[in-house]
């Protein structure tokens, strides 16, 4: 094997991989990045301003494009052609993938909430799951650096669910919309606070990225770079150092080791030729997404590692957590026929409801251990994406009814923390291979009482808030009916969790695998718990911190 002319191979170009590559290249390290999907340039490929009418089927979702025609996802969704996954008996799990440079950062919701002090010590607090191997204080400065680099709008609220950023880090948030102000008033009457959402949207320009001009959905991607995605920020910045080389259409199959158990190479399938390629590697960072990275490890079997690489703890593929999801919406009579104005804003929540129940949980007043937040679904949107509610009759009177209802619907979407359980995990399905000949993932999934009780609480609360706003909600679904399937919130993490001991975790606090000192995981797989606050900001923050540590180890010759 020839001596590599790069220091680190990074697998994946999404939140974790791009931040790792950015950090390493800025520290002078040569990085070779492998991406399983095609090259992608949001500057040239983002359908800005196209209306729903311009798309097939009014832009509605299809199996080809589950989030609609204009969603940025390329060659992905719940199913990727030729790349199946399977599920165990009585398990439902859905796995969203995107096969494109930048991965899922091209279309993500950009909600960017910090984890709190208590989030890192969940096990110590309530006995569920595992603690993280460090305190919030360790991560706080890295959150500041990440938020400043990524560009996050929001405010410091002082709420215990929303740790403050250092002064000057956050950009100003946009003003709340009318329905959000109504939700906030109703919630406040019930003793529940609302706050500006923190979102990775520029309201002030930085680097080459423009400030948001408050139009056209961020899910399509953002050609002006206001909505954060790695393809308009970290990747071009890393490339500008001259230290980044990227190979797309490179589907990693395994990480290979020598007789001493040291990582020496990465083997991938070149999707264009179908050839298997082995690249020598001094150090490898897996950031292929939590379940894809765990799949690579489990498929990397050798005489030293018969159960898969870095799996001496047996924890690779275990502890998978998604966020819980459920929601409730209603038409609010008092909002019918309200004055129309431009409510696009940054096209997602300006206000949201952070978790307010820590004290009640500490006092043992609730029958679930972990919190949730509510996102608000409101607004005068592109009317082609809207379908009026029940209408009666026809003609001008019916049209007037429909117009009155426009902008009168309010939804509350719960996003909650799941605790890991032994029934929710992934393994390799030895009987099924994808079109590249790589054995596929088999998922097992079950929600526990923790999640169901939390969702039941959320539904009751959502009903209370909507009722306070004047909605009529005669009955609620059961939590079993209401809770989304595993994977559907697309916050799956934990499959290679970090910890304080090689006995019960896959990596140390730096994402370095306990078993191989030149192998790192820098995606959501390393999460020891999955707070309800959306995973991407913390994936990036950890990748920045841990790639900095890796650069230092390389400088010292420790790796």
């Amino acid at each position, binding site marked *: 094997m020839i001596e590599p002319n790069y220091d680190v191979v990074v697998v994946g170009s999404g939140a974790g991989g791009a931040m790792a590559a950015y950090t390493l290249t800025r520290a002078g390290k040569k990085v070779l990045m492998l991406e399983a999907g095609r090259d992608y340039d949001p500057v040239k490929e983002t359908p800005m301003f196209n209306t729903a009418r311009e798309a097939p089927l009014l832009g509605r979702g299809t199996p080809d494009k589950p989030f609609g025609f204009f969603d940025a996802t390329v060659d992905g969704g719940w199913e990727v052609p030729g790349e199946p996954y399977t599920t165990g008996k009585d398990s439902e799990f859905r796995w969203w993938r995107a096969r494109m440079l930048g991965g899922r950062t091209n279309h993500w919701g950009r909600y960017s909430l910090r984890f709190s002090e208590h989030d890192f010590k969940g096990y110590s607090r309530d006995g569920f799951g595992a603690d993280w191997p460090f305190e919030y204080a360790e991560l706080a400065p890295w959150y500041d650096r990440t938020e400043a680099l990524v560009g996050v709008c929001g405010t410091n609220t002082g709420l215990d669910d929303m740790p403050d950023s250092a002064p000057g880090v956050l950009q100003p948030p946009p003003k709340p919309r009318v329905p959000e102000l109504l939700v906030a008033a109703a919630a406040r009457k019930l003793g529940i606070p609302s706050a500006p959402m923190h979102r990775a949207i520029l309201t002030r320009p930085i680097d080459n990225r423009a400030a948001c001009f408050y139009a056209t959905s961020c899910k399509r991607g953002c050609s002006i770079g206001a909505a954060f995605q790695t393809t308009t920020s970290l990747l071009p910045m890393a490339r500008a150092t001259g230290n980044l080389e990227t190979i797309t259409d490179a589907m990693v199959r395994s990480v290979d080791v020598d007789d001493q158990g040291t990582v020496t190479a990465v083997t991938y399938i070149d999707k264009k030729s179908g050839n298997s390629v082995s690249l020598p590697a001094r150090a490898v960072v897996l950031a292929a997404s939590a379940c894809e990275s765990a799949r690579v490890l489990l498929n990397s079997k050798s005489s030293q590692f018969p159960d898969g690489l870095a799996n001496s703890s047996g924890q690779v593929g275990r502890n998978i957590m998604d966020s819980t999801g459920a929601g*409730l919406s209603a038409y609010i009579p008092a909002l019918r026929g309200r004055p129309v104005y431009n409510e696009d*804003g940054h096209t997602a929540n300006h206000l949201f409801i952070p978790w307010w129940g820590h004290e009640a949980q500490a006092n043992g007043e609730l029958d679930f251990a972990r919190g949730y937040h509510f996102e608000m679904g409101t607004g005068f949107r592109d009317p082609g994406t809207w379908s009026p509610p029940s209408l009666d009759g026809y003609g001008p009177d019916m049209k007037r009814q429909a117009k009155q209802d426009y902008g009168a619907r309010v939804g509350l979407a719960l996003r909650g923390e799941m605790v890991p359980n032994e029934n929710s995990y992934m393994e390799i399905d030895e009987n099924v291979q994808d079109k590249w000949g790589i054995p596929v993932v088999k998922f097992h999934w079950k929600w526990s009482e923790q999640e169901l009780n939390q969702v039941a609480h959320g539904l009751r609360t959502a009903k209370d808030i909507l009722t306070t706003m004047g909605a009529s909600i005669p009955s609620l679904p059961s939590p079993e009916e209401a809770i989304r399937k595993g994977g559907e919130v697309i916050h799956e993490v934990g499959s290679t969790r970090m910890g304080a001991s090689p006995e019960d975790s896959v990596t140390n606090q730096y994402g370095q695998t306990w078993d191989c000192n030149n192998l790192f995981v820098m995606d959501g797989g390393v999460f020891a718990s999955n707070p309800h606050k959306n995973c991407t900001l913390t994936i990036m923050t950890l990748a920045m911190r841990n790639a900095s540590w890796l650069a230092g180890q390389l400088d010292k010759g420790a790796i």
Partner: protein
Amino acid sequence: MDKFPRARLTRRESLKWLGAIAAGVSVPLIHGCDKKPAPGTDAHWPELNLQPITVAGYGTDPDVMKPETPWPLTMTAEQRELTSLIADILVPREGDYPSASEVSVTDVIDEWISAPYPRFQTDRLKILSGLAWLDDESMQRFARKFGEASTGQQLEIIDDIAWEEAGSNPRFAQMAGVFDGLRRLVMSAYFSSPEGTKDIGYQGNVPLAGDYPGPTPEALEHLDGVLEELGLSDYRYS
């Protein structure tokens, strides 16, 4: 996937899909019409034998900058005519605002029912059955197809299926469900047109310089009234 499923407060089971459509996800257009006509009534329902549509969809990496619909439209000229007729009964021309068919709502519906994806093919069966039902019903009542009936005769049928009461009438319940779904598809398609978008008043999708201005004074004043009405004035967000 709808982030905000509707509360169970709707009058018709068939409305459940609505929320999902608002979130940009396809779900079957029309529920509530899978049941057979109630025996012992003079209800009827056409048995259509449709060949499945097997052409390719737009794939997982379509050119989103130049949206194109790759599948051919499949409605017959007669079905398109009837669709236009119904669409214009729902949304007739009003002053400066065009009728539904004038803003190509018929094309949207034809494209919708001609799509190769399973859920749209489910809608196809329902919509085409609904169109056939209208002709059958008109033949029974007036011995002529719906399109050849007088406007008064057409509205007599429409009045039997377009109102909430139809849902509890065994003779019309099935068609009422289909009509309700079709009505909402027509409204989405109408409001999605440039003229319909103007009609409904949507002001977004334009780039703004500077900070997002937030609600207008008029909108805030209206909110004040709402807060007052709901007894929430003391709980204003600040």
